[in-house]
């Protein structure tokens, strides 16, 4: 199996889909030069500037026009550059794209992939670092996914392009260069979690880059004799309740970790859903960022990070402080 980066895995998926289906095209700022994170490098040479289309700095028009083009019969991949900038196109995504099929009584579809590079990277401050995935899970009509590995960024991009629903596709900026094996025959369905590590003591649920951080935390915990099971949800809507329920039935303990602000983050949804359904040995916990803003200075930025030691410590506490 070839080894490739997280960025190149998605690029391969896009290129394959564009070869297979002439109606697939990409649109966003700077794509002709490979995109701001080089995740489109080389594509314009193969597919030309109409299908790897540059765009004015007009997020609302990029999103709105791609939607119009989708209704006219194409399958656009929309590049928002930074998830933060996609907020300039919120009406187009939330009021138009997510609702059109329903409002028009099923007459239309919006087969679109909306790529939004998310998350903390390095010294990018408050407008280039956010994790807003929970916002989109709140909007009926949208599929939301957050791949954490090169394999998933390949397989989920393929699934997103093939999907007739609009897919909010959140790639994490901190792992563009991370490498891994990619099996191009491996398909991933939305709503199917990945078991990243098996364990019997505590279930760690996460997604996006924090799923990788959880795997690191689980290695630390293993040295302390705590076997953590790591579930990477991969897609938040739909999310794999069955996999999480099965794991928590086995371990009796649930810790959800994510990079987004803890308050009203998707961890709250996971904890509430599990707590309503599965008796547990310890109080469930969600671990996210404080409800603070992401700063430029590295030490200030670090105050908002959820780290492997923090996850390991929280899991340890759950093991030690069990209610009677």
């Amino acid at each position: 199996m070839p080894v490739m980066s997280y960025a190149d895995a998605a690029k391969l998926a896009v290129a394959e889909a564009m070869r297979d289906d002439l109606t697939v095209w990409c649109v966003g700022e700077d794509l002709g030069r490979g995109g701001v994170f080089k995740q489109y490098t080389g594509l314009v040479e193969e597919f030309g500037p109409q299908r790897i289309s540059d765009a004015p700095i007009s997020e609302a028009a990029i999103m709105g026009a791609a939607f119009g083009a989708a209704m006219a019969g194409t399958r656009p991949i929309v590049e928002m550059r930074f998830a933060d900038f996609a907020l300039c196109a919120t009406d187009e995504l939330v009021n138009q794209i997510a609702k059109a099929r329903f409002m028009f009584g099923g007459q239309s579809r919006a087969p679109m992939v909306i790529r939004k590079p998310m998350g903390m990277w390095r010294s990018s401050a408050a407008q280039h670092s956010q994790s807003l995935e929970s916002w989109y899970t709140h909007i009926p009509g949208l599929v939301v996914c957050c791949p954490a590995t090169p394999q998933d960024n390949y397989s989920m991009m393929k699934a997103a392009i093939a999907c007739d629903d609009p897919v909010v596709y959140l790639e994490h900026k901190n792992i563009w260069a991370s490498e891994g094996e990619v099996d191009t025959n491996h398909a991933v369905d939305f709503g199917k979690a990945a078991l990243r590590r098996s364990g019997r003591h505590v279930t760690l649920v996460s997604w996006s880059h924090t799923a990788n951080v959880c795997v690191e935390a689980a290695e630390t915990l293993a040295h302390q004799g705590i076997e953590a099971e790591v579930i990477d949800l991969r897609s938040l809507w739909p999310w794999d309740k069955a996999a999480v329920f099965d794991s928590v039935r086995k371990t009796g303990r649930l810790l959800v970790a994510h990079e987004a602000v803890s308050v009203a983050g998707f961890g709250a949804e996971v904890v509430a859903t599990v707590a309503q359904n599965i008796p547990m040995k310890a109080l469930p916990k969600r671990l996210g960022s404080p409800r603070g803003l992401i700063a430029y200075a590295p030490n200030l930025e670090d105050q908002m990070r959820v780290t492997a030691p923090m996850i390991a410590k929280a899991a340890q506490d759950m093991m030690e402080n069990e209610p009677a």
Partner: protein
Amino acid sequence: MSLSNFDREAGLARLRMMERIRAFEETARSAAIDEELVLGAIHLSIGQEAVATGVIETLRRDDYILSTHRGHGHTLAKGAQADAMMKELLGREGGCCGGKGGSMHIADFGVRMLGANGVVGANITIAAGAAHGIKLLGGDQIVVCFFGDGASNRGPFLEGVNWAGVFNLPILFVCEDNQYSASTLTSDMTSGNIADRARALGLRTTEADGNDVTTLAATAAEITARIRETGTPEFLMAKTYRISGHTYFDPATYRPEGEAERMQATTCPIARQREALVAAGVPSAELDALAKEAHAEMDRALDAARSAPWPADETAFADVQDIGSPLQEAF
């Protein structure tokens, strides 16, 4: 002056369409006020019928239009059935959107009417995109995007019109200047003028009397033929007047005393077209019959809608999404 046979037929067809639009909206308004059958807000285009009629008659059936919250006229003119539209306004089964959209989201993809829109100006970028899609797919259709004067003060106006220019797309932007942004005089809230904005964005821009259906149709025919030929976007500023209030229940007391009455007496496009036809020798009885038939059609549409059932409850959960749909029990 006598009309040639073609002009007579064309003139009558335009009057018929305008009478149908007027009758549809008057019927819907009385269904709302007298019978409380239309439950949500409806926005009437009474006084603006010539714009929808004159522009859309120049389109092919496979051309696209996008409309606004004031979209009944555009939808009828593009060829949607009054029956299905009236059912939609009443929220009934058989409505063109299954009762899920109502007046503000009326759409008929069968005649390539890609939707009214509840958000002012939001259709401008979407329409540019529909034209972008046509170009990518190598089609020869064109798109007409209707919006109001108020929409020109929203960001998507700049973004969408610029987009059409940048990508050289086959689209006609039609600004229906009815002079009011809801209850506010648009000129009070607009710096410069709207047609100049389109010119500044590089679009060939034409200004027309939006209440004279004959000249408007001739102007629109030239423009849409040129867009089909060149694939280049253009802009049409159609000056009109909203005789009705913003919504059907808006008494529009913010307007100067007597303005609406005076404008109705002098600019109503239906009255003007009737006068022109009578002056050309068409018997007024023929025109009265045409208006009567339009009202009868809409009465039948209302009767059909009134007796149609509500949509099945479970359709509230359908057509949200395929993946992670609320219909899937697991979610």
